[in-house]
């Protein structure tokens, strides 16, 4: 067995992280995918690109956001010292904007004049609509009809920001179908359109682009922890749907052997309940090819894609970013899962002990914190990526708690 001398050198030139990743797209898109790759490489080498991005992340997004010591939660759990990386304080309320700023600058650099995106919970859709308003570009957001119903506030936000929200009625009408529809749009409007993919998945180079733009999360944690505690954190925890906030937090630490990392998938009603009761691609799926990359997928024995279930619309994607699949197989990152009930409980605990209403997605990560922190010593430094705020979720949480608003 070959042990890589770095976990941070991937992907290879064909976009592979081990056996995962790749470019499984229709021929119509291939020339454009190659263009995106070239433009991205050039942009990263251009100090002007980097400069504009940093400026926007500071002035517009509000970075750096705090690495916050969650003292009451720490006392409540009675173990590890818990920090929250406050991505929910970013403009638009989640980590998604980090990537959108980077990608729209790339789109402009490529001379594209129209933006499309898919969204599940609506956070990526809102972030995309926001940067399109900022840069005055027409924007079409694809969103499953089912998700539109359960994320009404975000739908309205996108419309206020000037985006056109197109309801996707094919398939199961959720995130995967929104991504199919966005790909269909892209194939049709390949000349003028840039597709801002929201998670660290899709055809190469997207998983790399999204990871790089989200790595600011981990980079900031590293220097903030150094400032606060004078050392590296001991463990990092983040929720994983496609896995963009997790890879952003983890990547800068992958080569630090003392830093333990846990990605938390959505176990829905329970992974053992059945293939349609969860959205845990790594824990409850197997490798396959979808949406441009090889990765762990929820699929039946015939290779047909299954619809995941999660209380969180942002986690019920039937795949996961290819780098996570590789980090799982190589054993560098542990992937666990939290159920709907555990996430709901964590959601409420966070609100009461810290005065922070987290996104249901982030509450899955918090559920893992609740399980682990009490078993660890008080000098164990644990960081949770609080990837988004929960305002968008209050209606569906109320419904689950049997409260009518």
């Amino acid at each position, binding site marked *: 067995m070959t042990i890589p001398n770095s976990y941070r050198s991937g992907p290879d030139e064909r976009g592979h992280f081990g056996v995962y990743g790749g*470019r499984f797209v229709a*021929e119509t*898109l*291939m*020339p454009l995918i190659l263009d995106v790759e070239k433009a991205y490489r050039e942009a990263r080498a251009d100090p002007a690109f980097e400069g504009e991005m940093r400026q926007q992340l500071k002035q517009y997004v509000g970075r750096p956001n705090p690495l916050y010591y969650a003292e009451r939660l720490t006392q409540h759990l009675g173990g590890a010292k818990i920090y929250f990386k406050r991505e929910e304080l970013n403009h638009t309320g989640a980590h998604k904007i980090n990537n959108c700023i980077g990608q729209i600058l790339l789109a402009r650099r490529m001379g594209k004049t129209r933006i499309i995106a898919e969204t599940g919970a609506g956070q990526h859709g809102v972030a995309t609509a926001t940067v399109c308003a900022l840069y005055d570009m027409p924007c079409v957001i694809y969103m499953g009809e089912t998700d539109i119903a359960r994320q009404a506030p975000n739908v309205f936000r996108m419309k206020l920001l000037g985006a056109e929200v197109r309801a996707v009625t094919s398939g199961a009408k959720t995130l995967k179908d929104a991504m199919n529809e966005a790909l269909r749009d892209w*194939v*049709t409007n*390949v000349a003028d359109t840039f597709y801002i993919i929201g998670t660290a998945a899709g055809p190469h180079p997207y998983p790399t682009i999204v990871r790089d733009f989200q790595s600011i999360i981990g980079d900031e944690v590293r220097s903030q922890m150094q400032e606060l505690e004078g050392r590296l954190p001991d463990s990092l925890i983040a929720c994983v749907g496609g896995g963009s906030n997790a890879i952003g937090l983890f990547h800068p630490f992958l080569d630090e052997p003392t830093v333990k990392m846990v990605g938390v998938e959505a176990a829905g009603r329970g992974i053992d309940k059945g293939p349609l009761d969860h959205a845990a691609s790594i824990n409850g799926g197997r490798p396959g090819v979808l949406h441009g990359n090889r990765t762990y997928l929820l699929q039946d024995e015939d290779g047909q894609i299954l619809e995941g279930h999660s209380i969180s619309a942002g986690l019920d994607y039937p795949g996961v970013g290819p780098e996570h699949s590789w980090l799982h197989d190589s054993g560098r990152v542990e992937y666990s899962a939290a159920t709907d009930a555990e996430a709901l409980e964590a959601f409420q605990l966070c609100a009461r002990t810290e005065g922070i209403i987290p996104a249901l997605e982030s509450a899955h990560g918090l559920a893992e914190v609740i399980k682990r922190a009490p078993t660890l010593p008080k000098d164990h430094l644990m960081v949770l990526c609080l990837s988004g705020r929960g305002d968008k979720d209050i209606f569906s949480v109320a419904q689950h708690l049997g409260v009518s608003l």
Partner: protein
Amino acid sequence: MSADLSADPISDGRIARRFASLKAEGRAGLITFITAGDPDAATGQALLDGLPAAGADLIELGMPFTDPMADGPAIQASSLRALAGGMSVRRTLELVRGFRTKDADTPIILMGYYNPIDSYGVDRFLADAKAAGVDGLIVVDLPPEEDDELCIPALKAGVSFVRLTTPTTDDQRLPAVLTNNSGFIYYVSIAGITGTASAANTAVDAAVARLKRHTALPVAVGFGIKTPAQAAEVARVADAAVVGSAIVTRLADGLDAGGKVRPGTVEDVLGFVRELAGGVRGARG
């Protein structure tokens, strides 16, 4: 350009023989697409078996997939109907086997997406497909960059791998797309999904002429051909015209509210294929 770019790695199969006989007849071929087992296996078998007599020269048989990213609403819906009817990779191959007991000559090209094949296992799939009487594969989400996955193993197993070329395939990229392509070249005449817009005839003429400068393989043109007249237009310049969504839509029109096939639907669909074949056969007359 090297000579092997234009050579067909599988020169003795049904596909090559069929295009040779079309050339001898001095006409273009009609390639019909249906989704395997839409909406049920029995209907799928009846349709498949009836296609050659209705005038299909080659058959593209869609392997249903839950997430057909390059297909428009008609073929997406047909895929989901077939899956709801219990279709699978194994049953798709059974349909081909059934067809081969009645027809030894009409080429069958399976068209679909990679995941069901990957899940079935590439080597096992190729062996079973070859044994069932499959002649070629079109796998939408496998560009030349991923040739190691299925294309190279398919050619080794004696199964043609037919590539899609598109309006976005520029001269720089074309040689890579033509390498390892076998059977024929499938020119997708629009940048888009199946069953939507139709390309301007002049654009198709130019595209076919350009491809012919790069390859000796037959060129089939598809995406957006809906009527016998449009099929005839394409058949004037290409070696074959591909019709899919229009046939699938005709079938969908023959289903009742519960998705069951109404009496006479198979005959109606085959009648439409006969009209398309009439257009193609009369194109150069």
